[in-house]
């Protein structure tokens, strides 16, 4: 009885204290005061979600719209704790459909707006992301893949690879950075805002549940400190001046009267996308010059692939490593060159052949054999890749 009374008293005290406490903690940095969230570069040990929230702050993002889903929740948790101190905003919406569309609204207003989701939420966000694609809106979406449908496993599944690149009623006019490490999550979240606003295509940062939830070391920094200038933002709606008098009104639409009218728009988008693709493409290649066998992977799986290649090299195996960082646009020409010198590719992924499809499309016409190592919904370790390759070499498995 006494314990209950005590608990009640504590709760009442907390409730009574809360408003002033909340005000005090927000006022630590007053809205709009603009002290930089990260003054000096520092080494930190944090989760991937935390890294994303800090990156968005460092990138001077204005507003986040979000809906809870594991494994991205802590992006919102850190944002809602940190953002008000720097005059930044947050809206929790009723679902991911709304989170995506409110993000479009924020971007239409000229704000560096972003959202984050995973798995089933990524499905629901494809509708708004196809609006962003077709209106050329510079949205930023962080996807911590978990797959689905429903709960599935919530930790890893590179099942959203194709969905994130080509989902919705779009033609894939998007930029997708597939991150491997927490440093990547931080670096590419900042970069995503600049890519989106420079090129006006929706930009995605792809991670997964492992990256979201585990802690590791990384450097966080103010982009300005590294000479990174944030792209200027501007409103698509609500510009200055009287519409129809000082300027034409903005009339943004996804409705067309004729096939020719629509074709002209899409052709224009395609030409622009193809023009900028070479500037955007990023990849990582290690020991591919003289490699006979090249391990291909993206995202967190690429870490296992790189470690496996290092081990195999130390054992005298001529192995190489290739990782697309932009999986859309895909580093096709770079991979094609390697396909002409190597003897075999092994594609490793935690999905049933999604990277595989991207690779096959990228090097269409080359004759190099591709051996898929597919583990849908399961993590892949360096040790198992080393063992897999050694078994191939020893003839225990078929070497093409």
């Amino acid at each position, binding site marked *: 009885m006494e314990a209950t009374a005590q608990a009640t008293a504590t709760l009442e005290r907390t409730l009574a204290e809360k408003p002033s406490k909340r005000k005090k903690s927000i006022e630590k940095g007053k809205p709009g005061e603009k002290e930089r969230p990260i003054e000096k570069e520092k080494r930190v040990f944090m989760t991937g979600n935390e890294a994303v929230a800090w990156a968005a702050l460092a990138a001077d993002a*204005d*507003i986040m*719209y979000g809906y809870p889903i594991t494994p991205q929740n802590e992006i919102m948790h850190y944002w809602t704790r940190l953002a008000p101190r720097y005059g930044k*905003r947050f*809206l929790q*919406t*009723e*679902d991911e*459909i*709304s989170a995506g*569309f*409110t*993000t*479009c*609204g*924020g971007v*239409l*207003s*000229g*704000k560096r*707006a972003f959202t984050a989701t995973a798995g089933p939420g990524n499905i629901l966000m494809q*509708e*708004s992301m196809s*609006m962003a694609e077709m*209106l050329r809106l510079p949205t930023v979406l962080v996807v911590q893949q978990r797959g689905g449908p429903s709960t599935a496993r919530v930790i890893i599944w590179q099942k959203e690879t194709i969905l994130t690149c080509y989902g919705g009623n779009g033609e894939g006019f998007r930029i997708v950075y597939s991150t491997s490490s927490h440093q990547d999550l931080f670096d590419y979240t900042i970069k995503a805002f600049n890519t989106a606003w420079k090129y006006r295509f929706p930009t995605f940062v792809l991670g997964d549940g492992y990256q979201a939830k585990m802690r590791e070391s990384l450097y966080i920094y103010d982009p300005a400190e590294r000479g990174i200038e944030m792209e200027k933002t501007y*409103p*698509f*709606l*609500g*510009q200055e*001046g*009287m*519409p*129809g*008098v000082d300027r034409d*009104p*903005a*009339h*943004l*639409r*996804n*409705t067309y009267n004729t096939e020719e009218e629509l074709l002209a728009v899409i052709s224009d988008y395609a030409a622009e996308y193809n023009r900028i693709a070479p500037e955007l493409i990023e990849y990582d290649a290690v020991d591919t010059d003289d490699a006979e066998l090249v391990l291909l992977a993206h995202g967190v799986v690429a870490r296992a692939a790189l470690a496996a290649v290092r081990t195999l090299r130390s054992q005298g195996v001529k192995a190489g490593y290739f990782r697309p960082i932009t999986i859309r646009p895909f580093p096709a020409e770079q991979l094609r060159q390697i396909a002409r010198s190597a003897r075999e590719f092994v594609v490793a992924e935690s999905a049933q052949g999604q990277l595989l499809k991207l690779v096959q499309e990228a090097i269409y016409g080359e004759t190099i054999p591709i051996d898929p190592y597919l583990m849908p919904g399961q993590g892949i370790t360096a040790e198992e890749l080393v063992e897999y390759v050694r078994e191939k070499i020893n003839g225990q498995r078929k070497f093409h």
Partner: protein
Amino acid sequence: MAVVPNMPKVWRAETKPHKFCPGCGHGLVLKALGEAIDELGIQERVVFGCDIGCSLLSWDFFNADTVQTHHGRTTPVMAGVKRARPDRICIAYMGDGGGYAIGSQHLVNAASRNEKITVLLANNCNYAMTGGQMAPTTLPEMKTETTPYGRNVEETGYPTQGPEMVAAITGEGAYTARGTVANLRQLKKYIKRALQNQMDGRGFSFVEALSGCPTNWSTNAKDTWKFLEEMMPRFFIVGEIKVPKDLVATKTKG
């Protein structure tokens, strides 16, 4: 001498005549909205969002910044704009299908959050752009393409009471009303009050406008007006449903 009707200043002459069917109510609702915008002097601050369905045909209707969104998604887009730019006057324009069916979760939650936006919804008792199917607002026994023998309320329920629902779930400061294109002065008054409520930052504001659809109702002019003036008000009571006290105290006549 030909009589030229007065059109609102905010109308974009280059895009007239508008794209709606002859006898459609949308033009009248938008005229009332245009006059309200003129009278409040907010043209420069308006951000107009239109939905899918016939309402999308208003994407180039006004000399106002406009975005045509997806079916049901205009409410969250306008909420997103308002959250990012609170100085704008955000108007989400949609039909009954967009607001009460496919976008109902957005309407419910935007209203619950008391988003400082104005939702203007044209209710014509059917999905018109797609050829006249049953909508949440279709009257009992009314024939549509998907209720060819008349709407059976046992199977499909009664017409959605939109403004009443919004009034029930909103907090203080929200404004809700139902007007009709059969009474344009009154409709304009409601729209003005709804916009004023947003300008004052008081809360969510919602106006449903009863609107005619002779194309899908298969009615001539006389029967269209009969349906609008006699049938629809039996199920949809015209009038203000929720009016914040200080809005009435300070604001607008006529």
